[in-house]
């Protein structure tokens, strides 16, 4: 799995790492139980401070995407708790996306169709894995 880091982005680097690992788990590029690199090794590979990677891992652990223990290091969680809906942050993010889509002239149907297609794409990618 390839992760892309944009130094000049408004999104902090730890958040970029976190988001891409979540996307990797979601589309099957990272399998449940799969080992993640150590904080130090990943920081050296990306060329960033290990505190930044550590923060991303802390966040992932807090949100239940990964588990860590001293012997095995960080791993993708084996199972994920079913959520009742979107989190508060993601709901806010979706609101922002809807606003931008509206301003760009998209209709409700077009927006929902775009969402449906993206969702289906990920489903089919998972099936292929």
């Amino acid at each position, binding site marked *: *799995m*390839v*992760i*892309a*880091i*944009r*130094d*000049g*982005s408004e999104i902090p680097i730890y958040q970029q790492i976190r988001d891409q*690992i979540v996307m*990797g788990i979601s589309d099957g*590029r*990272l399998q449940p139980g799969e080992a*993640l*690199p*150590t904080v130090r*090794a*990943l920081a*050296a*590979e*990306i*060329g*960033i401070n290990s505190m930044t990677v550590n923060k991303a891992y802390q966040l992932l652990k807090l949100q239940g995407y990964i588990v860590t223990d001293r012997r095995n290091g960080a791993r993708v969680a084996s199972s994920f708790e079913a959520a009742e809906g979107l989190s508060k942050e993601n709901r806010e993010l979706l609101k922002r996306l809807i606003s931008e889509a509206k301003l760009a002239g998209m209709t409700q149907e077009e927006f929902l169709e775009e969402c449906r297609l993206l969702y289906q794409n990920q489903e089919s990618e998972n099936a292929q894995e």
Partner: protein
Amino acid sequence: MLLDIIFFICMYPVNFILYFVYKSFGKMENMRKKGIYYGLHAPKEEELREAFLALAEEQEALFLRRMRWCLLATFWIPFVNLLIPSVSIDFTIWMLWFVGFLGLLMVPYLCAHKVLRAWKREHVVVVSEEQRSSYTELHEVGKVRRVRPVLFLIPVAVSAAAAVSYTIGSRDSYAGAFSYLIILFAIITILFYLLALWMDQQKVLVISEDSNVNLNFARAKKNHWKNFWLFCAWCNTLLTVGFALLLGKTEVAVGSTVLVGGILYTMVLLAAALCTLKKLRALEEEYREKRTEELTPDDDEHWLWGIIYYNKQDKHSMVEARVGIGTAMNLATPIGKIMNLLAAVAILSIPIFCLWMILEEFTPIQLMIEDKVLVAEHLDKDYEIPVGDITELELITERPKMSKNSGTAMDTLYKGNFHITYGSDCEVFLNPQNDYFITFVAEDTLYYMSAAEDAGTLTLYESLQKIVENQ
């Protein structure tokens, strides 16, 4: 003349090989494998890309023509050099020719780079640093390693053992003088190991969205480099052991041993380097179709002349080289700065060394008596021997055959510690072209000396004789 022939054999073919290697760097078929043309990325937009590649092809024809001109302008110089009798001037011209030739070979490449860069500046909108992404392979982070310490342990241990046993075993200064050479070669074996280790830790290059492609490419590439450094380490070990066995033995001709060993060693390493270059090119070709163009960020502005990498944002000290194969240093990192400084010192030391050689050869030696002290002066005061200590003073017309342990041995100057063939060590300060020399013993050390000319030697001998007789 002998030195001329040695230089000719050692350096002339190397320059021809470098010419063909440099030439291959500027050929379109090789540049396509990496997608980098004269140190620049081709634009991603189709129309611009086609125009850029057409211009690169035009530049290729010019590049090849300019390369031929560079060769024509320089290939004859070593032949003229064969006629020059002075060792230091000869050496200076060889060094300047070698460095100048290497620099000159870069000119056609830089000309093509300049034209393409100007075109790119005019036609392509550069993606700002903020919008650019850097890619990292998440799988097997820090695990794609090919260098295992155990592989290098044997050559390192053998080299070290040869150096230690030689240093401890050599009792006379004649053999001892070569200890430094053998220790130096033993250290080079360790350096090869460290270089292998350093290159092995290079980041996995992301060339595709498929992790297997990235990892297999990195593994294959690191494997080639590991094999190359391991081969170098073994060659160096063989040379170290060979020198330890042969040098210091009176029946072995030192000069020929070092010369033949050195030439063979250089040729074998050069062949290994060319072989690795070929293998890495084949690997690039194999993975060309699997490369995802979008994953290669256009960071041309961080590459000075498409060759030197300077990027403060990038913490990696080593990145994939743009010209040719291998790696390039990031000069913005502390390691890059240190390596750059060392390279600058190495290059600057060449003219300084040449100047020193010229001064050594052309400064006449001076032998005089000052306040009952025999003073031998060349670039500095080399010997100060109280006349009272001198015994067994003799004037000789036939100098014994001797070879240098340490110091200078030129056509017009012998200076330093020498070894008399089938004899003992001695201190020497003389012009070997003279007919008269003085020899004496002072504080259990045997000396051979002369003034710049015979007349001076004879006058000094008479003065010395008088003083010694009066004591």
